[in-house]
Structures are given as structure tokens and as C-alpha cells.
């Protein structure tokens, strides 16, 4: 009998597409499996090895996920870095290098970021030598647009042909999947390949999107891929256990996207994961560590850092600066809410109108418009993460861009270069261009997020915030320069050292804006602080992010990911929201008063024929087992899929007749098969004898809490001990929607 319980039927515990998983049941299954391994440990050497393997399989699995995630991120970084400069030109002597790498060891430039002799722009290759002429700019403009449209069009085609699930940011879906939902193919191999390739293409196309968010999806695909290896079957075959690996994988995704391992772990905890025990926390930590380590080994940017926009500030901040920081936070919250509202409205329009029928044309149009409008402005022409890097960094000696056009005076050697200085005309021109860039980015990102290519949101929203922050920072810097003795600076500016750095404002602004859009707090601050490598700025970042979250929550209650979950109607039971109604379980329960009665199994009176016709005529995903039709006392619960599998396997292995009786309880010995009566079939092993039950008077508040905290798929409702009805997760979600006056049918699937 023990052996019988240990070996499961093939297919048990798997779920159909778009079904909700039962956490309790899966975890119990895993506990059983573990117990049997422990029990057999001493039987033989092989068994003891098996138990050792079982103990460290989790760590091995997450370290493989980390290694693969780091490698994939490195490839994406290098590939995207190369492709983005294809719009400008090529390095003929080494075609695989981008502009920065092409000029990496050339010693013939006067200033930073200048074209070197090895780098050839397209007009130069076409024979137009004069860089200042109209022909030159026109040809560059046309070629820029062509590449941009080509890249995004190719990405849209690849997505449509090979992996439609690769489009979008992926974080709302990952959240839903981690909360216990099955979307077959969403984390598949094709999605992984296509999403990685298209991420390079779309970042290179210059659209207003980033590759950081989708990297979370990519690394979750890696996690899913590895957990399906035969040696990790305890994860691959158990959906609840698999989600532990996926949580760790999403941490690794953020870790490689921002070079922020701790930030990744906290992101997984705060934003993505649903079920996050301490064991998963440690595994995520380890996975994020390995991934960052591998990426550092690849060194994709050649700067010994994991991200392009790594900055290093040493300056302390003045107390007064908290006011502009909080102001930035408020602006971030407002921009975030504006963005969410506009984007959701546009996405709804796309979903319902004819626009949704032309996904590729839409991508092409957005790419064309973006390219046409972004080329004339130097700040939008460059890659978004390059722009963020420039905005974050301080003006160096060799910076000759307009943004760093200060009237500096170097005659006194004792004065350090980072002194405050009066802004030159170039700075004012840059402010004007930056404001235009901010408006452009805000508008175009609304239309970009949600088109049918991989689109991330971190970079564009950070970019908007960084622009805003830099502008505010320059203003503050000029105030400090003009009136260094103002009491608000507390003497920090009168000594001649630099007291206002626009780069720090850019960083705070970026955090605030990202906070306003995603409503993250802790993980965001940690990510930003890991980016800058300076502990000094935790308090400014915290205050800005908090302000942006307050303002954002006051203006609109949900972040962009939750808003997209709602828009798509994914069955996600948010643990942040409170349920404030006073309904009872009886109000939510199925069957309602006028519905046909519940389809039931009885524990010992049904035949194979009965079961077949029951399966054919009803479409429920599970059936309660009762003692008999007359006394409907609850015995257990059977899932439809398990019942199907068990019947099929019984038909294959044993002789079954139409009138074979089927038992769903332990005591078959009382009814032995006689001469005329066929041997009965016992399906005890597929019955869950401990289903969670509540009474019909249980408040919905408690029921919802049970669903959230225990991860249930259904509860059975009893009255005086008799079975009355059933509540599924979908019923709960519909009930919540109905009470808050939304369309209950917008909840998806089963």
C-alpha cells in the first residue's frame, strides 16, 4: 500500500492551461515525496545518494539559473550595445564593435565622446565627407529612421511568428503566474529565445522602452527551463515548488538588469512573488549573487560595472536639499499617475477597437514617429540608458557637451574642478531641449508600452525622472552659485566646495518617477543605492520615493503592473487590497438558489459508466465526494483531471466493465468482488480527504484571507455538517468585482 502511494500516476498534479494551482495540495505532495525519500535513505547507497541530491537540488538549480541568466544578460547587453550604434555607422575594421568600443583604444580624440577616425558614419561611407552640410544630416536622418523601423519591424515579425507571448513587459503575467496560475508556453524556450533576440532589436531601434523589465521574464523562462530538467523533477513536476525557483529567477533578472543583487531579491519579495518563505529568500539571494558574478565576468560594458549608468558620488548633502528631493518625489508621483491613466486608457482602446487588428502596422508607425521626432533632439536621439548615464554623472573635465557648458575657471589649482560655476548658454539650451525631451518621452511611452514587441518600462520612466531631476538640479546649482551665503545652505556653499550636484537630483528624480509608475518602495531605493555605490543618499532617495508613492496612491490606487493585471482580468488575488464588505460565504457560493444542484460523487455507489457520463456531461474542475445522495456528508474532494487520468490508467491496466463499482474510500474489503460482480475499482489515492471546509456563515473577509494566505484553489461550504456548495478562486474574484461595481465577466478563464 505504501509503495502505491509513493509512486504517482503520470500526469497527476499537472494542471491545464489557464487553471489555478492548489498550493496546499502541491506542497503536501512534495512533503510526501520528501518523507518517502528520507524513509528509504538507509536502504541502499543509491537511495542515500538520492536523498543527498534531493537536499542540494534546490541550490544547484538556482545556481544554474543564475549562471544562465548572467550569460543571457551579458549577450543581450553586448548585442544591444552593438546594434544601437548601427543606426549611426559602423566600425569597418572590426564590425562587431560599437562606437565606444571602436574608439576604445584610439588616441586621437581631443574630448570624450567624439567620433574617432576608425568609426565611420553611414554618410561617410556613402561618400559625404562634410559633416556640417545639409546633405550629411539629411542622409543620417533617413538612415536613422530606416534602421529604427527595420529593427522594430523585424522584432514585431519575429514575435508574431515564433512566440506571441514574448511581447510586453512580462511582469504582470509573471506576478499572476507566481500567484498560482498556469499559462502554458509563457515561460517556454521559444519565448526565451525570441524575447532575448527581440530585446536587442527593440532597444537598438531607439523606441522609448527598456530591456530591464523583460529581463525578469527572460530569467523566469530560464528558471522554468532548468526546473524541467530530469534531475530537478521535484520542481518541474510540482507547480508550487516550481514557483520557488521562479521567485529566485526573477531576483536574478533584476540583479543582472541593474547590477543590483540585493535590489533584485527585494524586488522579488516586494513586487513579484506571492509566496516567499525564508528558504526562497536565501535561494533568491544566492541566485542573484551568482547571476551578478557571471555578468561581471563577462564585463559587457568594459567599465568593470554591471550597468551602464554606474555613478559614484562622494559629496554629502545639505539638509535643505530634502525639500527639492521631496518636490521631485511629488512630481514623480504625478507623472507616474498620468502615465498609468493614459497608458491604460490607450491599451483599453487598443483592446476594444480596430487598432488591435494591426499589431505590426502599429509597431511600425510608433517606430517611425519615434525616430522622426527623436532624431532632431540630441537627448532623445541617443540611447535611453546612455542619456540616463549622462544625466546621472557629474560634468567632467573632458565633457564638451552643451550640458556641461559651464564658465569654469581653472587658474587656481587648489580649487577642485567640481566647483559651482555659472552656467553658460549651452546649459540653458540643454534645459530647453531636456524639457522638450521629457514631454516627448512621456507622450511616446504611453503609446509604446503595450505594443506587440518586448517593452520594458524601467528605463523610460527612469529617463523621464532623470530629465526632470537634472533640470531641477541645474536650477538649484545656479541658485547656490548666485547666492552661496543663503541661510538655507547652512554654510555648505560658501566655502567654495561643490554643494549642489545636478547628477544627484537626476538620480533622485529617476527613483521618484519609477516609484510613481511602479509603486515600488524598498526595492527601488536599494536598486538605486546599489547603482550609485554610495550610502549617503539613502535618505534622499527614501524621502523622494515615499513622497512619490503617497502622491501616486492618492491620485490613483494601483501601480502600472496591477493596472495591467486588472485590464487583462488575470485571476490575481492582490494581498495588498482590503476587503471591506460584510457579505457571507453563502452569498458567493455556487450553486446559487436557481442553479442546478452541485455535481457530486458518492463514496461507494457509483459505477464506471456513471463516472464516464458525469465527466461527459459536466465541466467542473473538481467534484466533492459525499457519503451518499441521501446523507450528503462530506468525504473528500476529487479533481476532474485526476479522475480522468485514473480512469484511463485503470482501463489500460485492469479489466473494467461498465458496471464496475468505484470506491472513493478506504474500506473496500467490505465489498469483495463475487462471481457475477466484477472486481471493484478503488480510487482512494486520488481523493483529497482533507479538503478545506467552511460553513455558510463564514464572513467573506475570512474566506478571502484563507484564499490569499493558504493559496487555496477552492473551499467547500457546509451547513450543519452537510455539503452545501463550493467557492473557487474565480468565484471570489468575481464576487469582489461585482461588489466594486465592475464587470464580473472580465475575470479570465477557469
Amino acid at each position, binding site marked *: 500500500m505504501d509503495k502505491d502511494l509513493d509512486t504517482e500516476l503520470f500526469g497527476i498534479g499537472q494542471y491545464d492551461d489557464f487553471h489555478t494551482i492548489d498550493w496546499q495540495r502541491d506542497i503536501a505532495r512534495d512533503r510526501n515525496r520528501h518523507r518517502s525519500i528520507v524513509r528509504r535513505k538507509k536502504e541502499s547507497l543509491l537511495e542515500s545518494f538520492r536523498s543527498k541530491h534531493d537536499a542540494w537540488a534546490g541550490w544547484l538549480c538556482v545556481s544554474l539559473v543564475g549562471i544562465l541568466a548572467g550569460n543571457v544578460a551579458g549577450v543581450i547587453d553586448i548585442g544591444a550595445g552593438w546594434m544601437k550604434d548601427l543606426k549611426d555607422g559602423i566600425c569597418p575594421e572590426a*564590425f562587431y564593435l560599437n562606437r565606444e568600443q571602436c574608439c576604445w*583604444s584610439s588616441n586621437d580624440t*581631443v574630448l570624450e565622446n567624439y567620433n574617432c577616425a576608425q568609426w565611420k558614419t553611414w554618410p561617410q561611407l556613402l561618400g559625404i565627407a562634410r559633416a556640417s552640410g545639409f546633405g550629411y544630416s539629411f542622409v543620417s536622418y533617413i538612415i536613422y529612421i530606416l534602421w529604427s523601423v527595420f529593427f522594430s519591424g523585424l522584432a514585431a515579425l519575429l514575435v508574431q511568428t515564433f512566440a506571441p507571448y514574448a511581447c510586453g513587459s512580462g511582469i504582470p503575467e509573471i506576478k499572476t503566474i507566481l500567484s498560482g496560475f498556469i499559462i502554458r508556453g509563457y515561460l517556454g524556450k521559444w519565448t526565451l529565445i525570441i524575447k532575448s533576440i527581440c530585446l536587442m532589436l527593440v532597444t537598438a531601434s531607439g523606441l522609448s522602452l527598456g530591456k530591464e523589465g523583460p529581463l525578469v521574464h527572460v530569467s523566469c523562462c530560464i528558471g522554468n527551463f532548468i526546473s524541467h530538467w530530469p534531475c530537478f523533477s521535484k520542481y518541474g513536476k510540482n507547480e508550487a515548488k516550481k514557483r520557488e525557483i521562479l521567485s529566485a529567477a526573477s531576483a536574478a533578472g533584476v540583479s543582472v538588469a541593474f547590477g543590483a543583487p540585493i535590489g533584485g531579491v527585494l524586488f522579488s519579495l516586494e513586487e513579484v512573488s506571492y509566496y516567499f518563505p525564508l528558504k526562497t529568500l536565501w535561494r533568491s539571494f544566492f541566485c542573484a549573487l551568482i547571476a551578478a558574478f557571471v555578468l561581471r565576468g563577462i*564585463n559587457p560594458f568594459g567599465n568593470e560595472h554591471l550597468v551602464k549608468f554606474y555613478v559614484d558620488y562622494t559629496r554629502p548633502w545639505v539638509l535643505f536639499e530634502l525639500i527639492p528631493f521631496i518636490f521631485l518625489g511629488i512630481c514623480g508621483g504625478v507623472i507616474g499617475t498620468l502615465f498609468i491613466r493614459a497608458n491604460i486608457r490607450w491599451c483599453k482602446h487598443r483592446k476594444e477597437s480596430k487598432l*488591435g487588428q494591426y499589431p505590426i502596422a502599429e509597431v511600425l508607425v510608433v517606430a517611425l514617429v519615434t525616430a522622426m521626432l527623436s532624431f532632431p533632439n540630441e537627448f532623445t536621439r541617443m540611447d535611453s540608458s546612455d542619456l540616463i548615464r549622462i544625466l546621472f554623472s557629474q560634468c567632467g*573635465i573632458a565633457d564638451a557637451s552643451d550640458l556641461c557648458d559651464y564658465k569654469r575657471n*581653472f587658474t587656481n589649482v587648489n580649487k577642485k574642478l567640481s566647483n559651482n560655476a555659472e552656467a553658460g548658454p549651452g546649459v540653458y539650451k540643454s534645459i530647453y531641449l531636456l524639457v522638450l525631451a521629457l514631454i516627448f518621452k512621456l507622450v511616446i511611452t504611453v503609446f509604446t508600452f503595450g505594443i506587440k514587441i518586448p517593452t520594458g518600462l524601467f528605463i523610460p520612466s527612469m529617463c523621464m525622472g532623470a530629465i526632470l531631476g537634472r533640470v531641477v538640479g541645474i536650477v538649484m546649482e545656479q541658485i547656490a552659485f548666485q547666492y552661496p551665503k543663503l541661510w538655507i545652505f547652512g554654510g555648505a556653499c560658501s566655502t567654495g566646495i561643490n554643494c549642489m550636484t545636478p547628477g544627484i537630483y537626476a538620480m533622485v528624480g529617476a527613483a521618484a518617477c519609477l516609484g510613481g509608475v511602479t509603486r515600488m518602495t524598498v526595492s527601488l531605493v536599494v536598486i538605486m543605492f546599489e547603482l550609485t555605490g554610495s550610502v549617503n543618499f539613502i535618505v534622499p532617495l527614501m524621502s523622494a520615493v515615499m513622497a512619490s508613492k503617497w502622491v501616486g496612491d492618492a491620485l490613483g490606487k494601483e501601480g502600472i503592473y496591477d493596472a495591467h493585471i486588472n485590464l487583462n482580468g488575470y485571476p490575481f488575488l492582490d494581498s495588498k487590497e482590503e476587503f471591506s464588505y460584510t457579505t457571507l460565504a453563502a452569498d458567493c457560493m455556487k450553486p446559487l438558489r436557481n442553479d442546478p444542484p452541485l455535481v457530486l460523487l458518492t463514496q461507494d455507489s457509483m459505477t464506471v459508466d456513471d463516472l464516464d457520463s458525469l465527466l461527459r456531461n459536466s465541466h467542473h474542475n473538481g467534484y466533492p465526494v459525499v457519503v451518499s445522495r441521501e446523507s450528503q456528508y462530506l468525504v473528500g474532494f476529487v479533481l476532474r483531471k485526476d479522475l480522468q487520468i485514473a480512469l*484511463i490508467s485503470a482501463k489500460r491496466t485492469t479489466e473494467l466493465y461498465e458496471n464496475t463499482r468505484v470506491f472513493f474510500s478506504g474500506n473496500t474489503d467490505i465489498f469483495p468482488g463475487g462471481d457475477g460482480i466484477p472486481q471493484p475499482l478503488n480510487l482512494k489515492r486520488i481523493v483529497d480527504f482533507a479538503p478545506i471546509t467552511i460553513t455558510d456563515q463564514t464572513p467573506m473577509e475570512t474566506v478571502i484571507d484563507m484564499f490569499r494566505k493558504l493559496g487555496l484553489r477552492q473551499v467547500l461550504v457546509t451547513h450543519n455538517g452537510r455539503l452545501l456548495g463550493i467557492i473557487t478562486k474565480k468565484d471570489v474574484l468575481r464576487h469582489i468585482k461585482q461588489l466594486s461595481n465592475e464587470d464580473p465577466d472580465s475575470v479570465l*478563464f477557469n
Partner: protein
Amino acid sequence: MELIVIFISLFIGLVSGQYENERCKCICPSLRVVANESLPVKQSTSQTYQSQPNGNEPANNFYIDRKVYIDTVPPLKCNCDGFVLPQLTNVSSKEFCPLCECRFESRNTEIIRYVIIGVISIIFLLVAYMLVLALDSYMLWSRFFKRTPYREHFNEEMLVETGPKRSSTESIESTSQPELTYAHSRGVISAIGHEQHKWIRKVSEQRKNIYDRHTMLN
């Protein structure tokens, strides 16, 4: 696209010596800063630089205006005194060097090269496969009723479209059994073909969810 092909064929296996993997990069102020009026001009150096085409920058002030110094020197020598000063004349270390910032950096062009070549080839493979699939489906549509093996596949698709509620014991059997017969009766090629069909069916289901029914990823 063609340009890339040409470049690939031209440059695979060619790593020019110019693309070093280590560099020392120093950023210093221009010489105007240190010596206000009497600008030290070292004729020889400035002329060698003049001979190189230098973007759109007028090259005659190169020596004086220069702010970036890049060369391959050992990491220990990568500082202002060891690396920048020997290139200049009439500049005192005390005045100039505190303003300089030197960084030693390293990269790996080999990795970059393999990654980029790998990425380009994957994209080419995908595009080629995409064209094959497009051609295939075109053929399929043009003689939809002549080819019997495909009709079965379409019927099944219709079944899928009625939603996840269809399944009973029979349908599970019908989906699981063909795999066995396929693997038994025909060779490896048809098994691959069958896998491909399964995959195409899955993708078209995804496509229907996203592009037609708009139930996901809006």
C-alpha cells in the same frame, strides 16, 4: 542586411591589432589651464597628430586642447606622472597632475566578437525559418482541400477553440495516443515534423489569444 553579410564575410577571423584589450585612460584639463599665456607648443607631436584625419575638429590646437590621453601601459604606470607628463613639455607635475584623473580599464574583444557573430547568425536563422513557415502556410492556404494530413490538424484546432471546457476522458485519449503511433510507425523525420506541427499549433493558439481575442497581454 546585405551590408552586414558583406561585413561578416569580410571580417570573420580578423582582429586588428588596434583593438587592444587594456587601456589606460587619463582625463586632464587642457594645457591652457595650467599655462595661461605662454602656451608650450611641441611642434613635432602636434604635426603627427595633424596628419591624421580627426573628425570635424580643427587639428591645429590638438596638443593644447587635448584632454583625453589613452594608451596601453601597465596598470601601475597608469597615472599622471608616469603616463601623461612624458608626453608633454614645460608642464610641471605639481600644477597639472592634481587635476588629472586616470583609469585603467580592460575589456575582451574576443567575447564581443563571438557574441555578435552568434547573435547575427541566430537572427538570420530565425528570419530564414520565418520565411519557410510563411511560404509553407501560403502553400497550405492555396491548396487547403488537397492535402489531407493537415485537415486533421485543423479539426483539432477547431476543438481547441471551443475552449478549455471540452475535455472528457475521450479527448485526453485522443490527444495522447497519436504521439505513440507516430513515433512507432514512421522515422525520425516525421517525428520532427510532428513535433513541429504540435509547436505550430501551440503558437497559433497563443496568437489567437493575443491578436484575435485580445484576452492577454493587452
